[in-house]
């Protein structure tokens, strides 16, 4: 489904733009999670095959011709892993944001540039 793929890329770009343009640390993390969602949609849509069902081989699917009836399971598998990893990264990022805020009372990324050159 090409629209899903386009949607995925669109979200990816929106997220990146958000990361590049927003000053607020939480907004940047939101941008990052939108990028993640975009990538996940891209992955799933790559595994999509027309007019097929989910790769769950219960009574709906003819076991003998299963391979002709289901969508590609691999992208789903990858996305499952990617989602959990994305959660972990996002959670860690937010923890950093909270800790940073405790140190300096600011959420603006411009306030954290004492390390340079």
């Amino acid at each position, binding site marked *: 489904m090409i629209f899903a793929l386009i949607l995925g890329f669109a979200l*990816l770009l929106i997220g*990146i733009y958000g*990361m*590049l343009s927003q*000053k607020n*640390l939480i907004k*940047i993390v939101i941008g*990052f999670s939108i*990028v*993640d969602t975009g*990538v996940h949609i*891209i*992955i799933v849509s*790559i595994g999509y095959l027309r007019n097929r069902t989910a790769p769950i081989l219960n009574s709906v699917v003819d076991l003998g011709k299963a391979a002709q009836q289901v969508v590609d399971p*691999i*992208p789903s598998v*990858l996305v499952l*892993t*990617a989602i959990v*990893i994305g959660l*972990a*990264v996002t959670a*860690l*990022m937010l923890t*950093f*944001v909270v*800790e*940073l805020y405790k*140190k*300096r009372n600011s959420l603006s*990324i*411009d306030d*954290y*540039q*004492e*390390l*340079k*050159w």
Partner: protein
Amino acid sequence: MVNPIYIIILSLLAGFLLSIFDKGGRKLSLTVFYSVLTFNVFVIADWFYRFAILGVSTLTINTAGFSAPLSINLQLGMLESFVLLFANLAGLLSAIYLIKKFKESKISSLILYLILIMGVNGLVMTRDLFNMFVFLEILSISTFALTILTKNKKSLSAGFKYMIAGGVASTFFLLGVIFVYYFSGNLNLEFISSNDFTNYGLIGVFLLAIGIFIELKPFPANGWALDVYESVNSGIVAIIAVVNSAAIIFVLYKILPLLPTVYLSVFTGMGIVTYIFSNLVGIRQSNPKRLLGYSSVAQMGLLAASLFYTTKLGVSQNISFLIAGGIFINHFIAKALLFWIAGIVKKNNIKDWSVLRNNIPLLILFGISLLALSGLPPFPGFWAKWEMVKVFVGSKYYIGLSAILVGSLLEAFYLFRWFGYTTKNKLNKETMEQVQFSQIFPIIVFVLILFFTSFWIMTNVYSLNYFNYLPLVAIFGMFLISFLRSKVKAIISIAAVVLYGYFLFPLGMSIQLLFGIIFIIGSGIVIISTINRKNTGKGFYGFLLMMIFGMGNLIIAESFLAFFINWEFMTIAAYLLILRGKRAKIPAIVFITFSLAGAYFILAGFGYMPNIANNGAIINTIGTIKIPLMAMILMIIGFLVKSASFGAHIWIPGAYAEAEDDVTPFFSSMFSKTGIFGIILLAISFIKQTPDFDLFYWLGWLGAISAIVGAFLATFQEDVKKLMAYSSMSQLGYIIVSISLLSHLGWISGLYLTLNHFMFKAMIFIAIAGVIYRTGTRQMYKMGGLIKKMPLSFITVLIGIIAISGVPPLSGFGSKWLLYNSLIEKGWFLQAGVFFFASAVSFLYLYRMIHSIFLGQMKYEHQNIKESPIWYLIPQVIFIIGIMAISMYPNLIIQPLNTIVGNYFNSSIVIDGYNVTSSLGYWNGNMVMYVTMGVFAVPLILLLLINGRTQTVKQFNIVYAAERPESPQTTHFAHNMFSHYYKALGGLTKPRIQSFWNYVSEGTNSLAGLFRQIYSGNGQTYILHIILYIVAIYFIMGV
């Protein structure tokens, strides 16, 4: 034999259960923690032994009971086990380094650390792309969290930037993985081939590669990494800089087969850009950890470039392993060491590192790490660079070649500067904290491994002749006996030099013999003067012997490689010797920068060299090959730096003057001759093979300019050692010209001059050392009238300057006579004119020296001064005897030189009794001696007769008026002695070359300042850099 998957299993089990273990006390959890890390090391070491020594074939580990591509498989082979061995070892050692921290901090830190190491193991072993992503995330998340092991504002904000950048990079990697899957239908590297990707399919590969490449911190998309290096705990940074990078570079290595050639070229270029620019920016850096960060980034760029390039060219496995492996080990060990040391020193400015002097063993380890990181022999980085240069030249990749050499120079510059600050900056009364054994232990282990690999490469890869180890043996040996008294060590050193000469030197009439006399016998004699030292610091004789053996080995080196490593050994030793001087911080850095620049020219030149038969010393075999013009030019430049020729002479006054006084003779009379030796080496090939281009004509001009400029510069010096330094420059100019003549007579005069210069410079410098030792100053106007107090030194200097200036009757006259003869014979009249003029100028400075120091009025404070110590006088006497002998009986030297040079040219002189006849005339040294003695005897007798009579003086002759001017120094005749000449000729001595090099250095500095502006410190800007970088690379590659 333990299945390597147990590393992952055990680490995970321990990781999951550590918090439970911790309930039983931190001791228990720490025990588990360290046991698992140790277990990892042993498992991998065992496998490495199997692959490397027993030749077991690569191991594939399937999971889940299925084989690839259905399931994820791991692979452990020679390369994997090699990388993992280092990674696990560094993991264990850094954990030991951090033990104090781990005892105090939350149990989570242990878990994170353990799993980080597990992630590295998995990342290196896995063959599945998506699994790589998972392990990459494991590695990243644990690293992100560990960045705040010491939690402060800086490490937090650095950690956040790191996370964002890492997140973006891994997003691209994941996109790459999925598109690679889409196009190839597989995730396992064994089943994906580069043929699966055509046209836009390549974007998938591109995304994959760029994701990993960003993780390698390419310039300029690497600001986040530098912040991390600067702010994070040293033990963790050591892991990030070496272990993480090792794993990531290995991932890159694994996906290399998928990349099309054009990617390889572009990525090579990007790696090299990273190398040169990171090092450039590094020179402005004063924070040690950030400095190391720049160096790390640079090294990873170099490593990546070497991987890409060797893959692109399809270089043989062994060579590419030597290059990439060498850079890898070198960076890995040296960087870990330096970060660890930085964590112990805890100073945030490299200028404050002088505190390290309170802990000499650590200072030595620090020095070793710096040398290794600079890519000097015998450390692994050197061999890698050597092979890399050959590959680059072989494939005509000149831009890359020059970029790498310039980058290396910049890197060496800031590292040596750092060492200079550490050893020379003022030491405030601070003391260092007590260093924990757990912190020093990892450092010692890594240094041992560093040496082990270095020697392993030397013996097993290059099978170098045993004598090439002597410089290193010398420094180690002297280190071991450093507890002995200084005088004992001096005698041991002399004995070592004698034994070295006795066993290694061929006695046949050859150039080898001549230089052997200079380098070996000369050194042996000059060492005598150092016996005078009451107390030498540690290492002095070690450095000295290293330099002497390095010089000696040049003569008998059997391959270009052997020649070059000894060249570097001797340079390092010379640097360390200069650095011992009290105010030698700046001169030493100038010296090493110029020397290394010269060495890199030589290195590049060697890259062009055809293979040479490996039988006997290269000085004897070089005639059989034709050296390409380019190699010739590059190497001559390198050699000229060492002999301080015009243009590269600015290191010479500082280095000579600030080196300790009894060390300077080594530099002037022996060390500078190595450049001459190198030029002779090239000239031999030049005359045996028909040259395309008369390079030596121009070299001759350069020599002439050096001679005259050196003489002028010497004339206007107040500092006696600087004066003699410029005099050396001038005299070496003479030698260069006569060698450049490429004629029989020219070479005889050249070699004769060389020998002559060696003797008189050694004795003058020793005499001066004695004078400075007694008077405590180098400024000539602060001395005067010392003839009465130090008559023997006066005689030495007198004989020396007669020999230099080339007036009869001493040997200098003979050499000048030969020189003018050969110049005229060759038809170089203009050059002869220049020399004539230069000789006249040299009278000026020689007169100034002897007059200011020994004649005139004595200073009040010198009235109780004594003659030089006996140890200074002995070598002087030996050299006087030498000079007198060859002056009286020139045939002693002319005859052998005739034979030696006869190997290369047809003879053009006739030697008959005491007569030497050339096409232009004859010279009878013996007769000249008698005649001159007669000429001098007459006025001497007259003077003796009239001396003692009273003299009447006019009223206005203030010399005898006993009036004391207000500022005695400025009215001293020796102060600004030739000011009227200066009005006329001073323009010639304006330090134009000095200002040129100042511009170069300022320019480099401001360039560095310009480029480091991009590191604004803003995390968002860094992401922008990454995105722009990706886009830019994409369009450069034109996918």
